[in-house]
């Protein structure tokens, strides 16, 4: 998969709600025959991840529970919450890219209420090493925490 296609996929997700995006991701993952292909895809996603501004790559923004370093930054653009992130490991970046594609540019309340069952559907958890799987749980939790914080601010 080349990065042009990846960018297009990101673009396609624009304007869709969380549930629609999740269904789209589940569809994409069902096309792969084996886990090496899924890894290749995640690596491409990782490489195309909208990078976090360097000023936000601080220790405060590191997600605890990941064995590789993961930084996440969130800010409101209008009514929507926009996430940017980075990691020092590329497959981890791919995982964050999937999460960010799902949750970024959405209303905080929608993020808080979103079901995350799609992660199990695409088999991300079972095919990641336990340390990464724990990291995945931490990442989802952190994104939802940001949404809660910003929702409180909006109220």
């Amino acid at each position, binding site marked *: 998969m080349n990065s042009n296609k990846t960018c297009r996929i990101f673009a396609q997700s624009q304007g869709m709600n969380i549930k629609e995006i999740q269904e789209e991701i589940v569809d994409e993952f069902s096309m792969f025959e084996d*886990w090496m292909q899924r890894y290749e895809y995640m*690596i491409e996603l990782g490489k195309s991840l909208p990078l976090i501004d360097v000023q936000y790559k601080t220790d405060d923004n590191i997600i605890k529970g990941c064995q*590789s370093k993961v930084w996440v930054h969130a800010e409101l653009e209008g009514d929507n919450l926009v996430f940017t992130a980075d990691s*020092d*490991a*590329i497959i*981890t970046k791919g995982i964050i890219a999937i999460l960010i594609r799902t949750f970024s540019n959405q209303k905080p309340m929608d993020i808080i209420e979103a079901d995350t069952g799609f992660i199990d559907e695409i088999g991300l958890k079972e095919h990641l090493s336990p*340390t*990464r799987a724990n990291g995945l749980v931490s990442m989802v939790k952190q994104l939802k925490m940001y949404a809660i914080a910003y929702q409180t601010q909006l109220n």
Partner: protein
Amino acid sequence: MIQTSFNIDKIRKDFPILNREVNGKPLVYFDNAATSQTPKQVIDVIVDYYSNYNANIHRGVHTLSQEATDKYEQARLKIQKHFNAASSDEIIFTSGTTHSINMVANGFSSLLKKEDEIIVSAMEHHSNIVPWQMLCERTGAILKVIPMNQEGELILEEYYKLLSDKTKLVFCNHVSNALGTVNPIKEIIEAAHNIDAAVLIDGAQAAPHIRADVQELDVDFYTVSAHKMCGPTGVGILYGKEEWLNKLPPYQGGGEMIAEVTFEKTTYAELPHKFEAGTPNICGGIAFGAALDYMNAIGFEVIAQYENELLEYATQELLSIEGLRIYGTAAHKTAVISFNIEDIHPYDIGSILDKLGIAVRTGHHCAQPVMDFFKIPGTVRASFNFYNTKEEIAILVEGVKRAKSMLL
């Protein structure tokens, strides 16, 4: 040349786990420095224990208890013989190296005073750093560090400079888990003894490859984990010279470790029971003995020779991959290769290798100071045992090449 007594096909058949598949590929197990696999001879002993004579030891009047006690004490004798301890009283069963080290660190709490100095090497596992830091916090003693060079070898001249009449204890691993370096422990022990300091050598990584003779080394404490040498997890030993073990207070209070208990005063049991409070890992201890029998039947010299061939082959093949750097290039090392490729994160390589059925360790290997020294977040570590083969190493090399092409 490998002696004819070393039959790799026969040996591999002893390890049932080597037949399994991982992610649809035959398992290639190269995480031996984390834990070794278990031969059926040891598994049989575990099954036999729970099937036939499971009982608590050292206290029962009945037959099962007597049988279990006999086997457990026989295992202690096997361990004594293997490490050539002067007496079986000097072999304390523990839950493993970490427990053994904590036992000594705790014991020294009452023997150290403020400004005493303890020396530790720069390439220790966290389990041989943190207990001493805690000891320093409790006693006001000061921790000094023996530095290493870029090859991952300790700089002995610097060590000699650290020694003084303030030095009370020296701690060092026999073999580094992160780098595979075999440390010059004989010189380290001798220099420490010249100023009357005690020495603890962490033998966790050495014991599967090198048969240490504690009397010849004249070491004061030596620690071993059974699970690194074909035995079960949760059991190991602390070897301690009798004079030291008598000096140290007991680590834990409880059953087994007492001679007499009244509410006014308790007197402690003799060695080794003074340090073995509570019901021990009986089955584990017996299985540890069986693991030593198994490895000794093959022979440690034969094992070392074969593993060295694996190390040389793997080093040469991995270095043929452009951009691959090996950390730990000491002249004398065990079959451990820690590496990175350019700036690819070790987790990424490890994740892809896992999908190919290859088990390696990635990360800082519980030796963050070593990683800080090389200014890296971690490495990929492939560690080989005598049941591994060159064919498996070829699969690793192909896997690493594939990971590199995906990740770069």
